[in-house]
């Protein structure tokens, strides 16, 4: 299957898109590698969907250029780019059966009827819809409609598949299932996938790289581990999960927080803030003998099943959060309990 497909490389150079006085995209430059699974992540209004629309050709960039495999496609309309696209809400043809939906792009290309029938059958099997080919989309569940949309977008072997929040209408369990499916399809087709979502866990779970957008600007593009563990800036750090940010001072050649000296690998004394993910912090009732530790007072406890989430305040008034496995918590913790928080030297980074 993968052998008859080609995957493209896309290069965006300083793409800007304005709508009147509003700048939806501000000089976005990035490269999507051949066969990559790139996720565009950001809050609503961050420009991620606009960027996907510029990639697809449904929106023209106001300035900048777009290159596919070294060819300038900036002025090429969507219909001439030959990309596959899965729309939010699937955009299936409601009056056609599943088989006719999937066959549509092949018929547009005037493929021979036997070829169309064979390809449709292959795609139906690939997305696991055997036995549903004669049904209308309205007779299918959300997850099944999603599969039809994927099959229709992939049936003609496009070099790039663009996906606009494809899972936003699915419930949580189905999402997990479809994510697996998506990974498998990416593996099997070898096509370049560009996927838009506002769900950070989805982005981290699926992608080879994540591009994070805010206010029309590309904030960071890197592998999931890197954007999470080494965010480029405060927006990225705060957007991806919970984070504790500590104001520090480097006076006297040594980092300190509220007068407490800290050891942090790779953080210079010019840093004004350091950040630590809550899952890397440990909770103690007494001051640990060695390592980084700061005092705090427990302000609230939220039981969340396997984990318990805690809110804390330091004597200097910094708010922190902490997540611990419920089973590992010391007995008798109540709001107001004075505690100590520790973390390994390698887990803090400057922001």
């Amino acid at each position, binding site marked *: 299957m993968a052998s008859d497909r080609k995957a493209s490389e896309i290069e965006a150079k300083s793409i800007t898109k304005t709508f009147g006085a509003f700048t939806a995209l501000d000089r976005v430059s990035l490269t999507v590698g051949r066969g990559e699974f790139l996720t565009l992540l950001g809050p609503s209004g961050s420009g991620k969907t606009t960027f996907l629309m510029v990639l697809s050709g449904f929106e023209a960039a106001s300035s900048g250029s777009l290159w596919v495999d070294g060819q300038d496609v900036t002025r090429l309309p969507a219909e001439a780019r030959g*990309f596959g696209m899965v729309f939010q809400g699937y955009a299936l043809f409601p009056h056609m059966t599943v088989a006719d939906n999937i066959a*549509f792009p092949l018929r547009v290309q005037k493929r021979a009827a036997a070829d169309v029938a064979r390809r449709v059958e292959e795609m139906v099997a690939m997305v696991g819809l055997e036995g549903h080919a004669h049904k209308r989309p309205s007779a299918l569940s959300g997850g099944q409609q999603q599969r039809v949309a994927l099959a229709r977008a992939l049936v003609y072997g496009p070099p790039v598949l663009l996906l606009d929040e494809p899972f936003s209408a699915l419930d949580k369990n189905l999402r997990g299932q479809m994510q697996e499916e998506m990974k498998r399809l990416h593996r099997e087709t070898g096509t370049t996938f560009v996927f838009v979502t506002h769900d950070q866990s989805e982005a981290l779970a699926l992608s080879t790289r994540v591009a994070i957008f805010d206010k029309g600007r590309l904030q960071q593009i890197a592998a999931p581990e890197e954007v999470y563990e080494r965010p480029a800036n405060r927006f990225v750090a705060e957007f991806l999960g919970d984070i504790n940010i500590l104001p520090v001072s480097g006076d006297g050649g040594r980092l300190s927080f509220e007068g407490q000296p800290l050891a942090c690998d790779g953080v210079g004394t010019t840093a004004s803030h350091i950040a630590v993910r809550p899952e890397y912090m440990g909770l103690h009732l007494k001051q640990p003998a060695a390592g980084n530790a700061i005092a705090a007072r427990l302000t609230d406890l939220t039981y969340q099943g396997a984990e318990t989430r805690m809110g804390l305040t330091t004597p200097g008034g910094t708010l922190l959060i902490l997540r611990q496995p419920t089973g590992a918590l010391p007995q008798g913790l109540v709001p107001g309990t004075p505690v100590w928080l520790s973390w390994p030297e390698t887990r803090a980074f400057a922001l």
Partner: protein
Amino acid sequence: MTRTAALLGPLMLLLGLAYLLPFLGVVRWSVTLPEPGLGQYHAALTDPLVLSVFWRTLRICAVVTVVSVAAAYVVTLLWVRGSPVQRLLVELCILIPFWISVLTRAFGWLALLSNKGLLNSWLMSLGVLSQPLTLVRNEFGVIVGMVHFLIPFAAFPLATTFRGLDERVLMAARGMGASRARIFWQVMVPMTRAGVLGAALLVFVFALGFFVTPAILGGGRSVMAAELVYLRIFQSPDWGLGAAVSVILMVCVGALLALMMRQGRAGGAR
């Protein structure tokens, strides 16, 4: 339940007094004048003259429905999906005539299309024609006037259908490389089918009862059912037959309305 009844009551009473009672009176005439029995219905359904009027009515209504809905489809497409300038133009062209009385419009068409009307005068002074074209006092004139009147009635329900169309489905078709013609015929038209059927039924039902436009633009030669009723009651006092034709027309309209409501319900359930 009682609240609903109380709120609907006055309207029901008005409809009962103003429409139902007089209509029952008409039904009574149809079976009592000039003598009791179903003779007038027999006459209405066998008299060649009356039958020819029925056939003409059906024919004109069918043509008017097809032409109005097709024209309204294009007009609405521009109205809902066109550029701002196109939208404004269409709005002016649909809404302004919509508020002008049917009588004024019929006379307007007469002034434009009659033998000594604007169109014929121009064409003759330009030397295109030596004899005027007969554009009114025939079915053509009636159809032109009715289509003009009925386009907005088809355009309004169609506009609702177009506004409910999922833009992304059309984008999806475009993204797959489909030509504009293919998108129109294979995606847009099938997706708006229910709206087209609804608009067609509405226009047809409306057209069945047309009186003023055919009377003026048909000039007494292209008599339609409603005008026949008028003639039988006011000119050749034959109230029984006029009443029977009325009742037949009413039954047709009622049946079509029932069909329309069933369709609407099926559409809503889907």
